[in-house]
């Protein structure tokens, strides 16, 4: 078996040779990292920072188990309930490189080359309380590189709250392996400072009847790429990906999804709602691949975007790649501004213009928040998030 250090060395060499992807790489057509990111990172903290306050930056769910990564290092975790176990990735090197993708994909080799913390979280049964993993960088010079592997045993289930805040550069790769009948509900909350670069790659592998529900909310940040790749290995697997992207200032946020239906009788649905203000640039790249023999796959993709400002920019690329014939795949995309008639309707009912606008926009993202209904602490989460959405909208109004 190749040692961890050997693999990291190899990744360093690949990163040195190829660096960040540019827009000639089709997957990075709209987000040119080579033009925006430095080719090396000098300021990686090796010591834990003291006195970091992240109280109002997390998902704010009291009963959640809290795991905090400050500047890429795991601060002390609380006591874990039965059925949850954490171990070091360095002890499981076979989980690091499993396919060619791991050495050819820029997000993966860049992550491994600079990796500070790698952990493996094993979930062996149904865990009632939600688990929050919070990532925070304390300064603009900080760069943190983390990899987390989740393994859900047969029938296990977990609600995972992942949140990001702070400055600097954050790069997270989270790999999820879900065995038969397991269920992962995953909220990703991205609420960072204007200067933060967040490259968040989430790879999910689903066995028979495994279900993965993802809700991603991006409220702020500088340059962000929220990428989710799901592989369906056996019949009955289902993935639901819902994203709300609210973006203002000079933000550049890229939502990329890739659903790889290797097996027959699997389903997926992807919904993205984007709201763009100021000079923000929003991107939705969705790809559904249905492989040969993956019959009876149902996959839908929907991307809607609302443009609030004349300087905002939206790029959409919803792709279908189909190699099986008995499938029902569809994608839809719509881009426009606030419906003037709906606005007039509300105003004619005596609602002020600003309030009416906020109402309409809230309505636009409410479908995404509605997906949190089944999450542990779903009601609290919805309430918290709605408040933050309202803050965003007030600021943009």
């Amino acid at each position, binding site marked *: 078996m190749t040692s961890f250090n050997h693999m990291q060395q190899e990744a360093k060499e690949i990163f040195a040779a190829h660096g960040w992807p540019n827009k000639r790489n*089709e997957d990075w*057509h709209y987000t040119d990292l080579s033009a925006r990111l430095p080719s090396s990172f000098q300021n990686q903290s090796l010591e834990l920072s003291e006195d970091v306050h992240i109280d109002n930056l997390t998902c704010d769910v009291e009963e959640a188990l809290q795991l905090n990564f400050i500047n890429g290092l795991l601060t002390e975790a609380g006591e874990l309930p039965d059925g949850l176990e954490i171990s070091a990735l360095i002890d499981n090197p076979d989980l690091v490189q499993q396919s060619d993708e791991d050495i050819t994909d820029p997000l993966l080799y860049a992550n491994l080359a600079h990796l500070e913390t790698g952990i493996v979280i094993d979930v062996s049964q149904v865990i009632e309380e939600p688990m929050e993993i919070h990532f925070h960088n304390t300064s603009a010079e900080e760069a943190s590189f983390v990899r987390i592997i989740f393994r859900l045993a047969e029938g296990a289930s977990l609600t995972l709250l992942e949140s990001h805040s702070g400055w600097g550069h954050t790069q997270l790769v989270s790999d999820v392996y879900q065995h038969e009948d397991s269920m992962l509900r995953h909220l990703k909350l991205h609420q960072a400072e204007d200067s933060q670069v967040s490259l968040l790659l989430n790879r999910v592998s689903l066995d028979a009847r495994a279900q993965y529900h993802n809700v991603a909310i991006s409220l702020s940040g500088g340059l962000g790429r929220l990428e989710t790749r799901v592989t369906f290995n056996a019949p009955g697997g289902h993935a639901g990906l819902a994203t709300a992207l609210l973006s203002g200032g000079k933000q550049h946020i890229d939502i990329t999804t890739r659903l790889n239906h290797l097996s027959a009788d699997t389903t997926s649905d992807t919904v993205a709602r984007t709201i763009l203000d100021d000079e923000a640039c929003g991107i939705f790249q969705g790809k559904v691949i249905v492989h*040969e*023999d993956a*019959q009876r796959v149902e996959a839908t993709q929907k991307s809607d975007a609302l*443009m*609030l*400002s*004349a300087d*905002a*920019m*939206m*790029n*959409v*690329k*919803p*792709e*279908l*790649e*189909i*190699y*099986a*014939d*008995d*499938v*029902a*795949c*569809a*994608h*839809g*995309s*719509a*881009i*426009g*501004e606030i419906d003037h008639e709906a606005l007039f309707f509300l105003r004619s009912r005596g609602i002020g213009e600003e309030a009416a606008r906020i109402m309409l926009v809230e309505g636009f993202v409410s479908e995404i928040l509605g997906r949190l209904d089944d999450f542990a602490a779903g009601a609290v989460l919805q309430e918290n998030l709605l408040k933050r959405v309202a803050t965003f909208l007030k600021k943009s109004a």
Partner: protein
Amino acid sequence: MSQAKENIEKETVEKVQSLAGEKYKYGFSTDIDSEKAPKGLNEDIIRFISAKKDEPEWLLEWRLDAFERWLTMSEPKWAMVDYPQIDYQDLYYYSAPKSMDDRPETLDEVDPELLRTYEKLGIPLSEQEVLAGVKNRVAVDAVFDSVSVATTFREELATAGVIFCSFSEAVKEYPELVKKYLGTVVPKSDNYFTALNSAVFSDGSFVYIPPNTRCPMELSTYFRINEPNTGQFERTLLIADKGSYVSYLEGCTAPMRDENQLHAAVVELVALEDAEIKYSTVQNWYPGDEEGRGGIYNFVTKRGDCRENNAKISWTQVETGSAVTWKYPSCILRGDNTVGEFYSIAIGNNYQQIDSGTKMIHLGKNTSSRIISKGISAGKSSNAYRGQVSIHRKADKARNFTQCDSLLIGDTCSAHTVPYIETKNPSAILEHEATTSKISDDQLFYCQQRGLDAEEAVSLIVNGFCKDVLQHLPMEFAVEAQKLVGISLEGSVG
């Protein structure tokens, strides 16, 4: 029943019978003496082509500049097609029927062998026959290998002020027009194949419609590749001046050969104020045999420029042939209130590979575009729709509607959709819909229990699936296209 109607019915029955059992009816080759430039591509070949055509110095310079740029470029690899590396030095870049050296004044002087070829293609070159009212009135420019061999109806068109001639003649007779518009829509270094075409293009059609003129008849060009190992590089330039209208049809066929042949054409359309261009293509190059041997590589750049206000350009294409298709007819909506349309049917069978779609570039205010694309894959073919809709900052109130549907017949083919939707203007409204599915068993069963066999049923359903596009074809083409849809899918079921 009236006599006329009876005749039409009889004709239809005969036509259908003549089509039955045929797979690719244009697969013959004609033995005609031809004159070729030596194989390979270098400056001398370009000078040779230019000299053969007796071209002015500026055009030779233009070609050489394109060649220089081509040398620095590399073949695009992003399309979802896979073919062996083309050896560009192993091709003939110029081939002309020898008897064309002294271009015939009238059709009587045309090599009878050539006339028979066109007869086989069903193209009415003889004006008498057309004038007698036997067939529909369509003015035809026929391009054989690299050279335009005959253009009909020129005089009648000339009275309306319409110029319709081969590209080489246009260079000689209307140099100002050619100079003014050539390369203004598709720059010579736009991509690898346009640079190649600009360097070695041999002929093509030239059309100019004067202001406030409605072209009195459909204009049509038939392209035919005959010689083996020849690349065909034609160039079409069509200008519709203010307030004019033209409908232009294009058809293409090639003989069945075991090796692949390259076709890299460029089409440029310019629509000035209030002008409208309707451009229809039935592309039926030889698609290769059932084992995927032979067939045409069709790498074409087509682009229309709605240069002034209220102009409209509409592309309709039926793509049934070619082993590999790489083609994206596009519209640049530069003027205010301009309209771009793209209606496409792309059918792939056996080992055909298609990567086709469109680009709608909205630059002006109140511009609108509409894309309807229907892709059908059967056999082991692959069919990709690749389209871009781009709304620029000043394109207030731009509007786009895109619908791309794919139909899969059998489990060994594939269908892909790759749309790029980009907007920098909040007042734009963009809608995109795409679906991929197979022919439903219920529909098939319904047709079959009404007495149709499986193949007829598929053909009927597919024609229904394509109806949105077929109805935008001029009538002469619509009938042909409908039959082509059936023939292309032969052998794909059962």
